[in-house]
């Protein structure tokens, strides 16, 4: 019994919960200050004289405005992150992990709004007692001697002096204990409530599932790519080397051919490995500065050193391009040149960049060897298409009369193109 009464006093969680309640009250301070300043003069103008000056009417209007503006603020997606993080840190692990994620759908935002209002109401209620009870407790020990317990403004709570006022500190201690229990209970209540209001909505779960599925598909795709490219090449290397070893004396011509095949297969495997490792690294958010079209001549130099013959025609104000357009165009050029090198070898690539008009045009074309299967483009092209679409642009990529051609067009001005 005694344990039940005093445990909340000594457990740390109570005080963390308390902090969360106080935050709830603090949240509305700016709204309260603003509406106290704005609402009374406004009521004076909007309502007839006696009604507009009624204290209850003013108080009611202030409360409505404060709660209304808080509710409106809760619809900012980041509000959920702040509220959720605070709840998880201070209310403990009963709060769902999802609470700290941005509210991305309407249902989640509505629930965040409800959560914020509940937090504010309970927080303000608890904070109100927090202001008075501890003070009353401290002063209560002096009250039997001085006859004065508490003074709020001009209002004085007086008690008789002497033994007959012993009840004052006793009642104050009980009130303080009751407050601790109130805080504890409110914290428990909010934790339970968070499991309803801050847990993932069906839309959130669907989104999570989609992301997980995508990741899994991506991993499978990489596994398959490694299997098909590097696994295949190493099989060729192993078998050709085994065979060459066996027939070295009897059929030196075969051994000679095998060595060339081994060399070629190993080289291709390295290129494929490079590509797959690149894809793996791509998922890691990079902190390196992003390249823009201003760096394109450097890129062309690098590719030329790698043996790609680039015939480039570049026109227009490249450094003046919008950042998003410029980085995307750079990536397109880079992707096209590396793809050409990877799939077609050291072939001549024609590159046309024109930034002179209302839109940026990028065109890259390279001949494809006749015997290679021309695809409609892999993930690289898909990624380009997605990003170009976001920029309201268009992109075409595919085989075209013995060439592989990528043609992208991104508008530079609003309403252009």
């Amino acid at each position, binding site marked *: 019994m005694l344990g039940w009464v005093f445990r909340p006093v000594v457990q740390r969680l109570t005080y963390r919960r308390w902090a969360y309640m106080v935050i709830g009250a603090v949240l509305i301070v700016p709204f309260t200050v603003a509406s106290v300043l704005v609402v009374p003069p406004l009521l004076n103008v909007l309502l007839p004289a006696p009604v507009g000056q009624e204290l209850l009417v003013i108080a009611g209007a202030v409360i409505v405005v404060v709660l209304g503006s808080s509710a409106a603020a809760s619809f900012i997606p980041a509000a959920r992150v702040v509220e959720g993080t605070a709840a998880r840190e201070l209310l403990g692990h009963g709060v769902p992990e999802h609470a700290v994620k941005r509210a991305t759908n309407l249902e989640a935002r509505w629930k965040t709004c409800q959560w914020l209002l509940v937090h504010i109401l309970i927080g303000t209620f608890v904070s109100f007692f927090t202001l008075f009870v501890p003070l009353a407790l401290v002063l209560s020990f002096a009250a039997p001697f001085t006859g004065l317990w508490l003074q709020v403004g001009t209002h004085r709570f007086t008690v008789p002096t002497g033994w007959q006022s012993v009840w004052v500190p006793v009642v104050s201690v009980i009130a303080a204990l009751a407050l601790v229990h109130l805080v504890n209970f409110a914290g428990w209540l909010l934790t339970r409530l968070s499991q309803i209001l801050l847990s993932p909505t069906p839309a959130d779960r669907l989104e999570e599932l989609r992301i997980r599925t995508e990741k899994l598909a991506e991993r499978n795709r990489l596994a398959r790519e490694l299997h098909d490219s590097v696994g295949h090449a190493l*099989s060729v290397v192993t*078998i050709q080397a*085994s065979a060459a070893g066996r027939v070295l004396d009897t059929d030196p011509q075969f051994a000679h051919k095998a060595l060339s095949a081994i060399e070629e297969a190993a080289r291709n495997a390295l290129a494929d490995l490079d590509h797959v490792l690149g894809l793996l690294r791509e998922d890691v958010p990079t902190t390196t500065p992003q390249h823009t079209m201003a760096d394109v001549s450097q890129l062309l130099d690098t590719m030329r050193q790698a043996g790609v013959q680039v015939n480039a025609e570049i026109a227009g104000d490249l450094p003046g391009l919008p950042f998003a357009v410029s980085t995307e165009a750079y990536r397109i050029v880079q992707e096209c040149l590396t793809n050409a090198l990877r799939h077609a070898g050291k072939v001549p690539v024609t590159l046309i960049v024109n930034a002179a008009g209302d839109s940026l045009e990028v065109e890259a074309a390279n001949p494809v060897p006749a015997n290679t299967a021309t695809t409609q483009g892999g993930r690289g092209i898909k990624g380009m298409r997605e990003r170009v679409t976001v920029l309201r642009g268009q992109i075409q990529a595919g085989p075209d009369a013995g060439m592989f051609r990528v043609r992208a067009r991104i508008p530079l001005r609003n309403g252009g193109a």
Partner: protein
Amino acid sequence: MTTRVLLVDDEELIRAGLRAIIDVEPDLEVVGEAADGVEVLPLVNKLEPDVVLMDVRMPTVDGIQATRHILDRAAEPPKIIVVTTFENDDYVYDALIAGASGFLLKRARPAEIVRAIRVVVAGDSLLFPAAIRMLAANRGDARRPGLREAGLTEREEEVLRLMATGLSNVEISEQLFVGIQTVKTHVGNILAKLHARDRTQAVITAYESGFVTPG
């Protein structure tokens, strides 16, 4: 008498390598090559090979389908060995269930490759029993009936268990203190009762029905 081998793989370099490795052996001979599962059946009927080395993954008709095809349709079905890049490949076990007599990794040494062909042709022992057990264990739950109704005698069940561990006929005869001819008779009866084409198929049936538990 030479063993006639047909190579099926979509990669020419793999076929050329295998051919060089196999043709060196006096008792083995590569009689033909195919680049895809679709070409195999007519070639089998025309060339009548004893063994087909079959790549698992091929563009149009993969090794599993081609295996099923040959075993269903060929006049004189050859033994089939599926060839794979990776051991940890679901397709390999599928191919064994489809009726292949064994499998080979592309990274196998030349000596292992030629040994595999000889073992499968001779049929008196199991190719890579440990790997087959592992594949069966990974697939564990694909149970099919077929052993209870087969009516094996107690002795035949004992022989089947030893076959699954990979013992050859000679080793089984030593273990059971019986003559080699007796073992051969038992094995023949087991294959007949299980409707199994060969040793591998009998062992696969034993795993699949839960008669032998891989583990």
